[in-house]
């Protein structure tokens, strides 16, 4: 017993704990300010000014919104399944937060003489883990919609489930093409390869595009926000929810947006690589280099988040049959072609063809 305890590297546990707390709080903070920027960008696109009353430029608005949600009465409908009703938002939040575990947030840093990796878990099946957890996110929607015992919520949950399943296929297929190029599922290795050569988006532009569209669908963002269609389904799967349980659902959506932006940046846009700069030549900078790399990743992520919002306030929602048509008849064949062409090129290259 004692020897087993001693075998655990205490510093390792502390290091990972600190990292987990830091990443979770950064994700939450970013999700908070995503709500603010969403409202601001929506306003600007619609020629309005947006929230500007709470604090300078309205930057305290997310706090006010959160406080308001906390103050609301917590209602659990009589006819609902209480356990599942509470489990729904918890699962949505959990799945949203868990994905951040395998993302490399920057290079190595040196803390008190210890080399520390800015990645919670550098597992060798990183992408598979992301996919597994992201698919779990739909359980939050399904369970919430089901437990509400409301036909609109149930309908929204069904829509959400079928949408996520339909769009996970082309997403996976576009990733297979990427994985054939990288030859690794490990996130840190994918980033490492991109630091050494070109970004994957140059090899896989179509794959990236399909991945982007599918990411929009997975996050339930417009134009794919059918589970939350206000005009047809009242409010969608979270109609019966109030107070912070509703807040969890809304928050999970924003965290999902952040995480999928990070995944896209990591897989296709070089992760924490600083663009146009040879990172290896800056190795003498030590921890500052890691900070700059983290900043580079966050700038890439911010651009993606802006894209999410920009698209949301430009494109109207798809009809359900259009959604399914696009998914099954448009994106899946496209990603299959992408996959086959990539496979052929990889095969030819490995047999000594020169390009």
């Amino acid at each position: 017993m004692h020897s087993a305890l001693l075998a655990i590297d205490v510093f390792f546990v502390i290091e990972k704990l600190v990292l987990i707390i830091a990443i979770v709080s950064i994700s939450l903070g970013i999700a908070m300010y995503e709500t603010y920027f969403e409202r601001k960008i929506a306003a600007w696109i619609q020629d309005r000014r947006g929230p500007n009353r709470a604090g300078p430029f309205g930057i305290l608005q997310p706090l006010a919104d959160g406080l308001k949600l906390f103050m609301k009465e917590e209602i659990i409908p009589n006819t609902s399944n209480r356990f599942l009703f509470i489990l729904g938002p918890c699962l949505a939040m959990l799945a949203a937060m868990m994905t951040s575990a395998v993302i490399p947030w920057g290079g190595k840093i040196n803390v008190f003489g210890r080399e520390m990796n800015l990645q919670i878990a550098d597992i060798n099946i990183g992408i598979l883990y992301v996919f597994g957890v992201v698919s779990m996110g739909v359980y939050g929607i399904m369970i919430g919609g089901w437990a509400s015992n409301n036909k609109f919520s149930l309908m929204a949950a069904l829509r959400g489930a079928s949408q996520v399943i339909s769009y996970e296929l082309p997403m996976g297929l576009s990733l297979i093409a990427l994985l054939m190029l990288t030859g690794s599922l490990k996130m840190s290795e994918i980033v490492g390869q991109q630091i050494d050569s070109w970004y994957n988006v140059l090899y896989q532009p179509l794959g990236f595009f399909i991945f982007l569209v599918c990411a929009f669908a997975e996050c339930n963002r417009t134009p794919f926000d059918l589970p939350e269609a206000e005009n047809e389904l009242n409010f969608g799967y979270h109609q019966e929810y109030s107070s912070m349980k509703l807040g969890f659902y809304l928050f999970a959506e924003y965290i999902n947006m952040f995480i999928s932006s990070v995944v896209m940046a990591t897989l296709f846009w070089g992760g924490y690589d600083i663009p146009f700069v040879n990172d290896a030549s800056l190795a003498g900078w030590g921890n500052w280099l890691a900070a700059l790399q983290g900043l580079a990743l966050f700038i890439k992520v911010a651009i993606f988040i802006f894209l999410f919002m920009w698209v949301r306030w430009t494109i109207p929602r798809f009809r359900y049959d259009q959604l399914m048509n696009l998914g099954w008849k448009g994106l899946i064949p496209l990603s299959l072609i992408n996959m086959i062409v990539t496979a052929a090129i990889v095969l030819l290259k490995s047999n000594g063809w020169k390009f």
Partner: protein
Amino acid sequence: MQALTNRAKPVSRKPMTLVEKLYMWNIAKGMMITLRHLFKKKATISYPEQKRPFSPVFRGLHILNRDEEGRERCTACGLCALACPAEAITMEAAERLPGEENQYREEKYAAKYEINMLRCIFCGLCEEACPKDAVYLSETFAPSNYQRKGFIYGKEDLLIPNPKENPGEYWKAVGNRKANKEQSN
């Protein structure tokens, strides 16, 4: 069916071309439009800090005027109440007692003068009807209130500050509209 005007355009029923079917080009066009709007100058003004100027003919809250010596001009003749199409004005007259000459200009004055701002349509007919130049419409509007009774403005709300005791407040209350009007007269 015969077209009523020559402006009608036939709807194009052509099948969509490949570029149109992909939607990407149109989505890109739409995104450029929203991007342009992102940087456009906003028409909104930040209201309480920044106010739009009223037009010279703006008619706002009523003011009961005083003359240069600070005496109330109103003589409670009731012409304003009579002219009012919304029947928003009520008043009660009283006779000026000896010794009150510095308060009321005429021998009769309004002991009670009420305007219901919820009924008032701010047409300005009371101002036109007043023979004593006692009531006029200013350049403010009725602030919001939680109760209906808060919108019934009595004499204490309507009466202008005394020009002798408080000239600064008086001229502020007179406002541009009244000053402009007197200039043109």
